[in-house]
């Protein structure tokens, strides 16, 4: 029934080696940043990837854009596996998959003008003859809501929100099919965040771009993405359409996460959601707990949780998938 997904990620794994501190540096372990992640992304859709620090969501984003080469797994873009492709093979693919970065203050080269930043992809991929490039750059600046006459200005002359728009313009230059947005608004003021979010939604609709939206802010993800995957210690623990996820989370971690978010809406109405307290810190990704990674902080943990790793599977009647032996009803 569903068409071939635009992006099909299967069992993606990224293990970073840890070197010992002896005289000769040997690899003594691995940081299991991404430990078997699978999901699909349809054309024009938005999938949210949510998690806290150490969850592996940022690494996943970097693997999809092939800024890093995965240890194992498959990344099928339009049916073609790009997980192990060489830089040469990847070059045409860079046009299809682009990334928006978190910090608008450090992700733009301060020595290049805005026109150069936005126009660089055109030059690299030789898509547009030199005399036509300025026109295209100005078009893009206008699309993201900036004054096209400002192409000669430098990044420091713009505000944070405007700089993020420049980053988005740059990502759009090659008309990608997939945009990986890594915490695109976290570094911005609250009143500006909404502007940029709205911009991204407009662009998504107009150009039919698929988004992988990586964030830790559950409220923003809920607004932007119809489908959301929750990550914990390198694994996806729950994946569901947004209505189901927020109304009735099935995985204990999702439940705890949602209950920890300060809720403006609840405060206005006067209610207060019951808060689940998670004790302690996230365990180290070098030695994650056996079986279910979440069991050390889970109030439902039983013996089976330590011996058998729960697989991500459908729970209940809806489309919700959770990796838990004792999912919430």
């Amino acid at each position: 029934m569903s068409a071939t997904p635009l992006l099909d990620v299967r069992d993606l794994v990224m293990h970073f080696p840890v070197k010992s501190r002896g005289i000769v540096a040997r690899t003594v372990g691995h940081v299991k940043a991404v430990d078997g992640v699978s999901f699909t992304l349809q054309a024009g859709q938005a999938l949210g990837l949510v998690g806290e620090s150490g969850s592996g969501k940022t690494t996943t984003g970097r693997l999809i854009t092939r800024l890093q080469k995965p240890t194992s797994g498959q990344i099928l873009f339009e049916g073609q596996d790009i997980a192990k492709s060489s830089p040469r093979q990847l070059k045409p693919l860079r046009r299809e998959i682009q990334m928006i970065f978190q910090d608008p203050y450090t992700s733009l080269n301060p020595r290049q003008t805005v026109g150069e930043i936005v126009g660089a992809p055109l030059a690299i991929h030789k898509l547009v003859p030199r005399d036509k490039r300025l026109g295209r750059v100005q078009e893009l600046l206008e699309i993201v809501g900036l004054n096209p006459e400002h192409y000669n200005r430098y990044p420091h002359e713009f505000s944070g929100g405007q700089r993020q728009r420049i980053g988005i313009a740059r990502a759009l230059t090659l008309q990608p099919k997939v945009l990986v947005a890594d915490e695109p608004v976290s570094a911005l003021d609250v009143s500006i965040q909404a502007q940029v979010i709205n911009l991204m939604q407009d662009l998504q609709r107009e150009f039919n771009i698929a988004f992988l939206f990586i964030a830790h802010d559950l409220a923003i993800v809920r607004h932007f993405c119809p489908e959301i995957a929750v990550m914990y210690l390198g694994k996806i623990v729950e994946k569901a359409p947004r209505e189901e996820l927020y109304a009735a989370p099935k995985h204990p971690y999702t439940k705890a996460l949602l209950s920890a978010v300060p809720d403006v809406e609840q405060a206005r109405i006067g209610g207060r959601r019951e808060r689940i307290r998670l004790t302690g810190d996230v365990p180290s990704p070098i030695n994650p707990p056996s079986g279910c990674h979440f069991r050390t902080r889970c109030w439902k943990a039983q013996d089976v949780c330590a011996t058998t790793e729960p697989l991500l599977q459908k729970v209940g009647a809806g489309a919700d998938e959770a990796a838990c032996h004792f999912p919430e009803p």
Partner: protein
Amino acid sequence: MIAFAIRRILVGIAMLLAMVLVVFVLFFAAGNPARDVCGKFCTPDKLKQITQVYGYDQPLTYQFGQFMKGLVIGRDFPVDDKYRAQLEKTHPELVIHCDAPCLGYSQHDSMTVNAEIAKYYPITIQLAIFSFLLWIVFGILFGVLAAVFKGRWLDRIVVGVTLVVYALPTFFVGTFLLQYISIRWKLFPYPRYVSIADGGPIAWITSLFLPALTLALFYMAGYVRITRAFVLESMSEDYIRTAKAKGLPMRVVLFKHGLRAALTPLLSMAGLDFAALLAGAVITESVFNYQGLGLLAVTANKNSDLPILIGLVITAGAAVIVMNIIVDLLYAYVDPRVRLR
């Protein structure tokens, strides 16, 4: 920490070996060493004798092997076996046994390079240490003052003066100190080196002061600027705000928190600059005619005394590598983030 140190030292030894190889290639592979050593007034006989003594006609790998052997266990000169055997019988006193680490033999001066360096080294090292102390103490002091009074007249004066001093070449400063401060205006006794054993500590320090100052002024100017910059940067860090918010007195905030963070990169830079001085200060020693390694280098160059030059280059390189290791270890000791990785 120990593992870090051992690793660092092993790397240092490897670097030393690599450096020796590079020096060797530079001096021996490119030119005609025998010709160079022979000098301006060269005769075929002299050329032949030099070749026999130094073995310059041997294949390069053999020469390098001999050199390394000299460094590790010692070697004998003349290199040519037949010639040496012959000399042993007729003029045994002309056969040189050079102990490890043998850096070479200067026929011109009839001394091993090691002996020459040992003779000239004391002045160089005393000058290096004295000027180092001068520039560090006053450089940091004025740098801190300039940072604390940033924007005010003290800062402006310090920054302006250091810029001028930094721009003055060493020979100018040295000559000025010698000609004017000492000779014409008689503000200071004429600098003539007196060792501590001969004249006692006061005379010794006095004799070293002017050349040490010549060397120090240039670095001092630089370090004032750098200290100022590091302290300003360090004082704008968030942890300084925390220190103030704790109610610590400004003195503690400045020195314990601010300067401490600035000192680390500062001292590692200073270590490397100091290493450069250990090779000898050519210009300063020449101006004041102090018999240090710098003067040795100038003389050796005039006499085309290749072995001494090679020995000096290797000594200088070794000093830099060793200082590098020391600085790295110091840095790891001081900054816990480096060693507790």
